[in-house]
C-alpha cells in the first residue's frame, strides 16, 4: 500500500487547513463509529423514504448501504456494473486505482479531505464498464445515528468509454444526532460516457455537512448532477468542481430547503476547459425560520466556443432568514458565451391572489407556487431516476408549508 503513503503525508499536512468557504468546524470532536452489522433495513424503511430511498430494490442496478463506518451491503445486479466498498477496490486494484484516487478531488484541499483520508471509512466504488448503458440507478445510502460521529466515506464513480450509469445517494440520520459527515466523491466520465448523480440529504439540527466532490468529464461525455437537501442542520458547505473537456456537457442542479438555524454555503464550480464544452448551473434555494444560505456559482470559460449559463433563484419563506447569491462568470478566452440570471425574493402576492381568484385557498396557492419554484427541467434521465427525484420533490413541496 506504499502508493497510498504520499496521500497520507499530504493529508497530515492539510489536517488543520481551514475550508475556503463556509463556517470552520473543530474536527477533533468527531470520530468514526462502529455499529452492529446486522441492521434490518426494513425496520428503517420510512427513514430511508425521507431521502428518496426505497428498500424495495426492484428497478435498481445495484446497491450500497453504509451505517456510520460499517458497510452493510454492496452488490451489483446487472452485467457491466461493478460495485464494491473503497477498501475492497483498493485491495482488488492496488496501484491501478491511483488515477481515480484523490485526482478529481485533491486530498489536501482542506481539513475535511485530509480527515477523510486519515480517518474515513468506507465509500462506494462504482464502475460502469465500457459500452454498458445502464438504465436503472445504483442506489446508495449513507446513514448516521451516533453522537459525535464522523462519517467520511470516499466514493469513486467511473463511467468507462461509451457507458452510462446513474447513482442516487441518500444520506440521512436515523435519529437526532450530532456529527460530521464529510463524504468525498470523485467522478470520472470517460469519452462519450454519461453519468447522472443525484444526492439527497436530510439531517438533524446539530450536524455539520462537508461533502467534497470533483468531476472530470472527458471528450463528448455528459454529467448531470442534482443535489437535493431539505433539512435542518448546523452547518453545510460544499462546492463541487466539474471540469469539462472537448464537447462535454454538464447540467448541475441543486435544490436546497433550509430550516431552523441552518447555515449553508454551497454551489458549483464549472470549468469549461475543452473546445465547445457547455454547461449550466441551476439552483433553487428556499429558506425558512432563521436559516442562512449562500449560493455560489462559478463558470470559467477556458476554451474556444464554450457556453455556460447560471440560473440562481432564491425564495425566502421567513423574514428572519437570509439568502445570498454569488454568481461568477470568468472568461479566459474571447470566444465564449457565459450568461447568468438570478433572483431572490418572497412569494409574489399578486400571484397568490390570482390563484385565489381561480378558487384555491391561500395555502394551496402558496404550495402551487412553491412547487413551480422548485421545478427544474432536467435533461432526460432514466425513468427510474426521474421518478425518484419526483418523489422527493413532492415530499419537499408537501413538507414546506
Amino acid at each position: 500500500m506504499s502508493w497510498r503513503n504520499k496521500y497520507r503525508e499530504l493529508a497530515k499536512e492539510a489536517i488543520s487547513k481551514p475550508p475556503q468557504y463556509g463556517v470552520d468546524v473543530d474536527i477533533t470532536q468527531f470520530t468514526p463509529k462502529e455499529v452492529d452489522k446486522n441492521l434490518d433495513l426494513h425496520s428503517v424503511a420510512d427513514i430511508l423514504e425521507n431521502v428518496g430511498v426505497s428498500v424495495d430494490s426492484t428497478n435498481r442496478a445495484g446497491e450500497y448501504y453504509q451505517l456510520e463506518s460499517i458497510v452493510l451491503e454492496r452488490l451489483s445486479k446487472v452485467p457491466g456494473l461493478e460495485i464494491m466498498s473503497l477498501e475492497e477496490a483498493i485491495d482488488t486494484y492496488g496501484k491501478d486505482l491511483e488515477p481515480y484516487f484523490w485526482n478529481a478531488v485533491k486530498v489536501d484541499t482542506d481539513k475535511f479531505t485530509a480527515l477523510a483520508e486519515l480517518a474515513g471509512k468506507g465509500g462506494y466504488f462504482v464502475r460502469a464498464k465500457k459500452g454498458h448503458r445502464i438504465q436503472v440507478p445504483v442506489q446508495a445510502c449513507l446513514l448516521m445515528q451516533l453522537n459525535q460521529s464522523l462519517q467520511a466515506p470516499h466514493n469513486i464513480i467511473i463511467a468507462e468509454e461509451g457507458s452510462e450509469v446513474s447513482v442516487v445517494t441518500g444520506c440521512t440520520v436515523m435519529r437526532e444526532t450530532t456529527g460530521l459527515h464529510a463524504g468525498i466523491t470523485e467522478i470520472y466520465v470517460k469519452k462519450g460516457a454519461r453519468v447522472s448523480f443525484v444526492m439527497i440529504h436530510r439531517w438533524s439540527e446539530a450536524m455539520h455537512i462537508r461533502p467534497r466532490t470533483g468531476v472530470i468529464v472527458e471528450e463528448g461525455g455528459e454529467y448531470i448532477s442534482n443535489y437535493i437537501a431539505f433539512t435542518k442542520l448546523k452547518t453545510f458547505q460544499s462546492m463541487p468542481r466539474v471540469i469539462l473537456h472537448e464537447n462535454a456537457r454538464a447540467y448541475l442542479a441543486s435544490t436546497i430547503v433550509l430550516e431552523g438555524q441552518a447555515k449553508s454555503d454551497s454551489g458549483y464550480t464549472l470549468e469549461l476547459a475543452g473546445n465547445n464544452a457547455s454547461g449550466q448551473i441551476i439552483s433553487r434555494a428556499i429558506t425558512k425560520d432563521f436559516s442562512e444560505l449562500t449560493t455560489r456559482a462559478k463558470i470559467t470559460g477556458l476554451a474556444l466556443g464554450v457556453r455556460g449559463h447560471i440560473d440562481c433563484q432564491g425564495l425566502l419563506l421567513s423574514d428572519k432568514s437570509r439568502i445570498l447569491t454569488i454568481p461568477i462568470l470568468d472568461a479566459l478566452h474571447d470566444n465564449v458565451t457565459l450568461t447568468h440570471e438570478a433572483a431572490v425574493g418572497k412569494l409574489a402576492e399578486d400571484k397568490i391572489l390570482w390563484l385565489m381568484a381561480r378558487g384555491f385557498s391561500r395555502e394551496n396557492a402558496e404550495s402551487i407556487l412553491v412547487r413551480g419554484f422548485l421545478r427544474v427541467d432536467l435533461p432526460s434521465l432514466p425513468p427510474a431516476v426521474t421518478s425518484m427525484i419526483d418523489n422527493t420533490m413532492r415530499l419537499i413541496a408537501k413538507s414546506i408549508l
Partner: protein
Amino acid sequence: MKVLGVENLKVSTDGKIVVNGVSLHVNSGETVLLFGPNGSGKTSLAMAILGHPNYRIIGGRIYFYDRDVTEFPIEKRVSLGITAAFQFSPELKGIKLMELAREIAEKHGVSEDTLKELIEILQVSHLLNRHTNVGFSGGERKRVEILLTTLQAPKFVVFDEPDSGVDRDSILIISKAIEKMFELGLKGALIITHTGFLAKHLKANRAYVMLDHRIVCEGPAEIISDHIAKYGFDMCILKRQAGYYELA
C-alpha cells in the same frame, strides 16, 4: 333577479380613492359592458368586486343575489361563485398550463370532456405543456385566462378587458367560450372593454360608462359603444342628458 348589485361603492388603494360612489347591477342572464378611459377605475372596481385585499372598500355595499358580501374575504366570494378574469394575468414559472387547468377543473367538478372542449374552442392546445403564461403572446394569455376562469364554473365574472390586443378571430373565440360559460352555470357577466366587437357577438344588453372613478352613463350597449367610438367618452354625458340612453 339581480346576480350582482353594487351600491354607492367607494374603494381606495394606496391611500387614493379609485372608485368613488359607484352603483351598478347585473341581472340574471345578463351580459353588461363597462366602458371608460384609462385610469378611470374599471380594474379597481373589478378587484373590489372580487375582494382583492389591496382594494379596500371604504363605503357602499356589494350584493351577490340578496346576500351582502361586502365584508367577505376573497376566498369566500370565490367559493360562492364570484370571480374575475384579470386584465393582466401573472406568469407562473414551473407550473405547466395543463396541470393547472386540470387542478382547477377537478376542484370545481368540471369534467375532462368539458376541459377538452374548451381547449378546442379556445385553441390553446399548443400551450398546454408550457409553463403558464411564460412567453405567451398577448392574445394567448387572454385565451388562457378565459380557459382557466371557465374551468371554475363561476356564477358571476367580471372580465377585465378580455378583448384588448386580441384579433377579430380570437374575439369570436372568446365570445364562444363565454357562451360556454353560461352553459356551465354562469348567471351574469360584467365585461370591461374598449371596443364594441365582443359586445356584438355576446348580444350584451346594457352598458355603463365610468369616468373619473364614477359611473356617468348607463344605457343600451350598442348605442353607447357606438357613441364612444364616434365621439369619445366625454360626449356620452351630454348624450345622456339629451335622453339618448333611455333603456326600454
